[in-house]
């Protein structure tokens, strides 16, 4: 038990010490004084009009050779760093996300005076405490492996980001303090004004956590889209320039949203496991509700994620056409087929969970007959979505087709078809959710029937519009590749969601219960959908992390500092998938360990759990 309480503190100390150490060790003036004369090409420049006084103070990025990379027997440098980074990112995502909805839950609990929220929030927090220390440990491991295997890169980055690293360490200390006060003060600060103070602590915790992520993001995005340095990598002296590079803002947003979705999925899996192993109805009800809420958060955060992704991709294109094409059209085109399969699986699982949820209320039976139609639409959309643009053919098939284009599948491989499919998937997932929300109520307004008819009309015309846009822009306008349909399609989808939700609220303003939600009355198999969501999220994060990093190709810092190590080549998708799988298994094992440890440290205080 002592270990559990001390571990965060120890690891925080270790990490901070490491950070401070390297940021001091690699002060710009010291670290490169010996290297400067050894770059004759640059120093012999006489015609450069752009050389400023600041550049003279900062040397260019070092040009490395394969010998400059230390070797440790038995360890593959890239694999070691990759694993450490991946572990750190998974745990970091988890511990950043949990406080966000712990904060939200605590606030909702205060507003609704529902102790159920508060006790759930506390339980999440306990889980996150152990994860926090593991995050720090993996962070330390990552840093250590980087220093050991890529010392020159770290020196270069530290020469630019030194001040932010010190800031990082300071905030890290602050966050640790806030975290401890927040968690251990939970019951002490439980009533009245004290609760407000506690809530404020939660806010501070999130603020510092997010700040930490933003700082670390700057280092990562700098490596992809360097700013604040000239073409040779010489720093202009202004840290803000380097921090505020092209990808920083979209990456901050993308990671922020993704973390919430990810945290939700992990908590959902936790709740699912507890549900399966509950012995009492009360526990079962509690964990069923927790799983539902966590899944709601996860899927809710998943929906805006593609838009943040579009922004990120657009910025990558804007920075370097080459990197953008590499990402979407080149080597990694197939990776997005894998991504499509994973996201399709997420959608199916989320819908399945909602369908199973219909059995929570007696009123849900009315809607079960629609499941097959929703499933049909989802499946067709899904199949369209992952139909590859480049078909893989056996020789005999190629012979039979006699050409490179498939007359039927060819059009489905293009962007307009995929956009159409995604929007339809979103709409039907929304429909599943709508049905679930309705399952325990009967509208009694006299005009409810008209309201529902309006909703149906909006739905049908929206789908017609989306399909029409996709087909028309995709195949009947001259430019096959034009994705002109995507914006009006998304607008249509959003319109449906907003308008139908408003009408829904109006219809059910006056309603009577068709049967209460009986939390806990959920088939066991539905809980596996939550596991699938968690596993898929984890795997997907690993895969997308790989592609984000891999599009830099053979650069440490894109176009500025070249990776001259033997590992500079881009691995195949299959290899990356195997690495991600091993990582996922290790991560899952540690998470299970965390849950086990946090269970040891105290039973859940019974604060609620009654159906309400």
């Amino acid at each position: 038990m002592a270990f559990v309480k001390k571990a965060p503190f120890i690891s925080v100390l270790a990490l901070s010490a490491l950070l401070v150490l390297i940021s001091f060790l690699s002060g710009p003036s010291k670290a490169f004084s010996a290297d400067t004369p050894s770059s004759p090409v640059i120093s012999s420049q006489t015609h450069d009009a752009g050389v400023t006084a600041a550049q003279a103070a900062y040397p260019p990025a070092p040009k490395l050779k394969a010998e400059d990379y230390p070797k440790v027997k038995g360890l593959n440098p890239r694999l070691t760093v990759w694993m450490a980074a991946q572990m750190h990112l998974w745990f970091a995502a988890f511990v950043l996300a949990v406080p966000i909805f712990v904060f939200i839950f605590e606030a909702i609990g205060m507003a609704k005076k529902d102790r159920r929220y508060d006790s759930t929030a506390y339980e999440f927090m306990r889980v996150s405490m152990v994860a926090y220390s593991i995050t720090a440990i993996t962070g330390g491991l990552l840093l250590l492996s980087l220093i050991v295997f890529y010392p020159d890169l770290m020196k270069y980055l530290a020469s630019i980001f030194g001040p932010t690293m010190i800031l990082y360490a300071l905030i890290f200390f602050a966050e640790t303090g806030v975290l401890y006060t927040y968690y251990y003060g939970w019951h002490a600060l439980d009533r009245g004004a004290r609760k407000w103070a506690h809530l404020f602590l939660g806010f501070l915790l999130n603020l510092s956590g997010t700040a930490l992520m933003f700082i670390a993001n700057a280092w990562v995005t700098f490596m992809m889209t360097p700013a604040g340095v000239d073409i040779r990598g010489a720093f202009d002296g202004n840290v803000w320039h380097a921090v505020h590079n092209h990808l920083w803002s979209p990456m901050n947003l993308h990671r922020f949203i993704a973390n919430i979705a990810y945290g939700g999925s992990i908590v959902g899996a936790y709740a699912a496991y507890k549900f399966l192993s509950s012995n009492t109805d009360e526990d079962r009800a509690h964990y069923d509700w927790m799983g539902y809420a966590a899944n709601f958060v996860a899927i809710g955060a998943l929906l805006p994620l593609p838009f943040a992704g579009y922004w990120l991709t657009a910025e990558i294109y804007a920075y370097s056409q080459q990197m953008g094409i590499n990402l979407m059209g080149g080597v990694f085109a197939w990776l997005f087929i894998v991504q499509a399969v994973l996201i399709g699986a997420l959608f199916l699982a989320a819908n399945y969970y909602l369908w199973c949820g219909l059995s929570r209320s007696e009123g849900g039976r009315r809607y079960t007959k629609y499941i097959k139609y929703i499933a049909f639409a989802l499946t067709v959309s899904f199949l369209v979505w992952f139909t590859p643009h480049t078909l893989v053919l056996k020789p005999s098939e190629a012979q039979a087709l006699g050409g490179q284009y498939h007359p039927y599948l060819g059009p489905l491989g293009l962007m307009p078809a995929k956009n159409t499919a995604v929007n339809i998937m979103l709409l039907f997932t929304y429909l599943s959710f709508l049905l679930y929300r309705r399952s325990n109520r009967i509208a009694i307004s006299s005009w409810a029937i008209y309201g529902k008819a309006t909703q149906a009309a909006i739905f049908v015309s929206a789908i017609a519009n989306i399909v029409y846009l996709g087909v028309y822009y995709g195949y009947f306008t001259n430019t096959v590749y034009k994705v002109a349909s995507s914006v009006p399609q998304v607008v249509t989808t959003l319109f449906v969601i907003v308008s139908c939700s408003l009408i829904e609220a109006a219809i059910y303003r006056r309603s009577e219960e068709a049967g209460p939600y009986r939390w806990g009355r959920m088939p066991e198999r539905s809980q596996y959908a939550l596991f699938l969501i968690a596993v898929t999220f984890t795997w997907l994060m690993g895969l997308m992390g790989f592609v984000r990093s891999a599009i830099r190709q053979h650069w440490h810092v894109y176009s500025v500092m070249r990776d001259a190590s033997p590992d500079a080549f881009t691995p195949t998708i299959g290899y990356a998938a195997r690495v991600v799988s091993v990582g996922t298994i290790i991560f899952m094992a540690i998470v299970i360990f965390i849950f086990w440890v946090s269970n040891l440290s105290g039973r859940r205080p019974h604060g609620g759990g009654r159906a309400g």
Partner: protein
Amino acid sequence: MKIPKPLQFIIVVLVVYGLLKAPGLLLGKPIPQSVIFMYMLFVVIAVLLVMTATDESTEELFAPVRALVEDPSKRLIRNVVFIILPLTAGYIAYGFTKTGGGQAGLRSVHPAPPLEMRAYGKAFDLSTLVNPLRRLEKEDPAEFKRNVEEGGAVYFRNCFFCHGDKLDGIGHYAHALTPPPLPFKGRDTIAQLSESYLFWRIVKGGVGLPQEAGPAESSMPAWEEDLREDEVWKVITFLYDYTGNRPRPLGR
């Protein structure tokens, strides 16, 4: 009459499979096995999900399976099934080991082009490269026609052995080649491609294909060795002219 759930399951899966197989069996345009495999995997999962969404239908779906092991009156069928199952599994395993797999290599036939290509001592940006003869089509139709004819001569002295007299990919040596030479005839061939894509494929040939497209097996020569740049453009012009196709405009 209500069809029992397990039968429904089998029927739905079989019908979908039949639909996916139909283009190949009826129209001779098969959906690739790799795609069918993926499709079927998800269709089976989706059907399972629908049928297990409520307790009642789950119960009904698995009732025969459950009955098989639990109902004493079904002992005979159970024993038969329990004997047949291992034998089938064994037979499949035997089949696998007997032929040693021998799965033919998968190959993608329409790989993404590179950004840039080097040939004839120059660099070509494939995203902006246009056929220099194309503008003659409007400016000087007679000159354009002459170039097309010269392109025809280039084609019939170099390409038609494999790609065929009729530009249908069936030349008199085509039957000896795997993968088969590509056709140019038809609206779904070169009309889908820009001329810069053709330029890349002709100049760099089979060996210039990316790995996923099987450069080791393609017998397309790298024509930069034998044809001049202008001859390549002429032959491209001919390919479009003879088949009545229009090149796809450049742009993403």
